[in-house]
């Protein structure tokens, strides 16, 4: 809380109508709408991909064709017409940017509107930003500094060109193309994303950050992120999202794979702010994401996410605790307002001995929204002395919203220790009155109480992100007590 000033918050509250709702007018290079083998060949060709990757895509496509879209009890939406989507859209600018000066001024303007001017980012935060706009990376910074350490941080396409052996080895190793409907679709048509490799024993000295953004109308976005942390290495990775205001729903089906080898640690933080749709529930992003990490022995993966956007969110960052003594953590705040629907949670798959997982989930429902937590803790036969602690709290802001918790536990080893706690509370009139009696406005009181409620999660985020997340919470809950 201490990080933001009142005037900042006041300003944010003024333009609570989605503030990143604008469209950049850059000439796009878009393939025809629809999905078939030819389209996939075209995408692969445009990206000058090696043969093995084309084959990978085609195989995924044939698998996807046989799959049916999953049904979810607590999420209702008009299913996307997969033949009405253009699967590739790149800013029509084949030239790669050597320096910041080369970047299209209009693109810079876009970034400025997003509040992430590159210069500022670089100077103030020491964050290396790989900015993905319409599926193609347009600027990569801090490359040299990272290069000295042997850290690779680049767009997925660049990785395919420059580090094909790494990509080929690890892509699909945690989220196979057969995993689920959206993962198969992504494997067939993904256009770009980010790739990160941290060599043995290297502690990445800065937060690696990627800003995703959907731009051209009607283009679905299918990113792939692959983070490989070699033995004993450490990396903190930030993912942030904003999207322009749109009338029709936009599909977003990303795949994120994390690999933490022996004694490695990956912290993956997301502040997700896709356009949620207007007050009547019109428009907004459909967000179907498959995120999974694999831990070797003594490795640790932490997922931290603050979700305030999207019309429909379907997302379960998961950890496979394969190695002995590995650790998986999941810290989540999911806010839904108006007609938003979120179905999020995590899966902790314990395979190794003495593996440990922690789940802290904070759901906040406002308006007429529906917020579901779905978690699976699976202790397998060989996972002796595995431990899990789960805490799922729900906070209701009105009488019209809903919170649902579905904790599943599968335990096949009697030595496991599993603890689960869950609470549901309505934001307290007494708490609000107490704050207001001290001179605090209702809006600020809500923000204070909600941030307090989410503290355990927000504390996991890097400083700048935590401040941003607090502002997002305040904006998305403005005027929401009822």
């Amino acid at each position: 809380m201490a990080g933001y000033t009142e005037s900042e918050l006041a300003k944010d509250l003024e333009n609570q109508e989605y503030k990143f709702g604008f469209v950049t007018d850059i000439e796009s290079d878009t393939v025809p709408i629809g999905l078939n083998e030819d389209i996939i060949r075209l995408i692969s060709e445009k990206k000058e991909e090696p043969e093995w990757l084309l084959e990978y895509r085609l195989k995924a496509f044939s698998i996807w064709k046989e799959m049916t879209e999953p049904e979810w009890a607590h999420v209702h939406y008009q299913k996307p017409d997969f033949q009405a989507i253009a699967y590739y859209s790149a800013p029509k600018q084949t030239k790669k940017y050597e320096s910041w000066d080369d970047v299209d001024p209009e693109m810079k303007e876009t970034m400025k509107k997003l509040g992430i001017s590159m210069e500022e980012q670089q100077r103030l935060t020491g964050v290396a930003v790989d900015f993905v706009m319409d599926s193609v990376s347009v600027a990569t910074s801090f490359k040299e500094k990272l290069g000295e350490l042997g850290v690779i941080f680049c767009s997925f396409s660049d990785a395919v060109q420059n580090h094909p052996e790494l990509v080929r080895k690890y892509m699909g190793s945690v989220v196979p193309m057969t995993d689920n409907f959206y993962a198969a679709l992504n494997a067939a048509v993904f256009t770009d994303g980010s790739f990160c490799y941290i060599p043995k024993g290297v502690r990445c000295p800065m937060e690696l950050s990627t800003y995703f953004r959907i731009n051209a109308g009607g283009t679905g976005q299918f990113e792939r992120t692959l983070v490989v942390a070699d033995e004993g290495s450490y990396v903190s990775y930030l993912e942030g999202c904003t999207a322009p205001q749109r009338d029709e729903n936009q599909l977003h089906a990303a795949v994120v794979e994390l690999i933490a080898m022996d004694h490695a640690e990956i912290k993956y933080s997301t502040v997700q702010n896709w356009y949620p749709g207007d007050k009547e529930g019109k428009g907004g992003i459909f967000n179907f994401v498959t995120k999974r990490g694999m831990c070797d022995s003594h490795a640790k993966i932490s997922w931290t996410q603050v979700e305030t956007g999207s019309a429909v969110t379907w997302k379960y960052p998961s950890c496979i605790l394969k190695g002995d003594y590995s650790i998986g953590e999941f810290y989540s705040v999911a806010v839904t307002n108006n007609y938003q629907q979120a179905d999020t949670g995590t899966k902790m798959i314990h395979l190794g001995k003495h593996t440990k997982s922690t789940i802290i989930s904070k759901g906040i429902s406002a308006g007429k929204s529906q917020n579901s937590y779905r978690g699976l803790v699976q202790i397998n036969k060989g996972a002796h002395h595995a431990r899990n602690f789960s805490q799922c709290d729900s906070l209701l802001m009105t009488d019209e919203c809903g919170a649902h918790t579905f904790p599943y536990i599968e335990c096949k080893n009697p030595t496991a220790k599993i603890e689960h706690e869950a609470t549901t509370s309505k934001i307290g009139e007494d708490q609000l009155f107490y704050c207001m009696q001290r001179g605090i406005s209702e809006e600020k009181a809500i923000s204070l109480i909600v941030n307090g409620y989410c503290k355990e999660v927000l504390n996991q985020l890097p400083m700048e992100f935590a401040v941003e997340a607090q502002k997002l919470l305040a904006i998305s809950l403005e005027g929401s007590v009822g």
Partner: protein
Amino acid sequence: MIKIENLHASIDGKEILKGLNLEVKAGEIHAIMGPNGAGKSTLASVLAGREDYEVTAGSIDFDGTDLLELSTEDRAREGLFLAFQYPVEIPGVSNINFLRTALNEIREYKGQAQISAKEFMAMVREKSAIVELDSKLASRAVNEGFSGGEKKRNEIFQMAMLEPKLAVLDETDSGLDIDALRIVANGVNTLKSDQNATIVITHYQRLLDYIIPDFVHVLYDGRIVMTGTKELALELEEKGYDWIKESIDA
């Protein structure tokens, strides 16, 4: 400081305050006593502007402004402070953060600059000493896991930080052992000046041995039925509230 005239207030259609009159001047301490259910906490809530209560008649002048026209937060910003009978817990929000937010909102309302972190921390140190509040409690979440006595001391600490014109203390003495009582009373006395005023709600005269009131009022069935000095409190202690009942009914 405050002038309450013919105040009628009800909750859920039930009239609780039935024509209450009270005037408190700057520099004064007033005690309000009365049996359980007389309407003491209701008066405090109505003054603070709690929405559940409906004011059906009467007026409240607070230092020249019409208090009833103001929102809850603006009443606080104008200098009205309520020490709650049952302070609530706000998990995850530190006392410090809570108070800094409150202080800055009040300052902004008055057109003053935000308090600097350094100035604020110095203030926390000075004010927490007044109620001998452990500095660790100042950085813990608001009232979370505080003992009953700590909660009450924390209320007085907040009062010290926000420097109100009028403080209403609702049963601040209840649940306090004698040492805590002395500390709280000492805090209230330290904060007293000729610029501010205090209304002490209690139903034990014990507190009034430490906080010496200028006036003692008896609130009974939604009205102030008797006003006197400290001696009245002693008399009440001795004779009980039935005596009041009889003398009114008579």
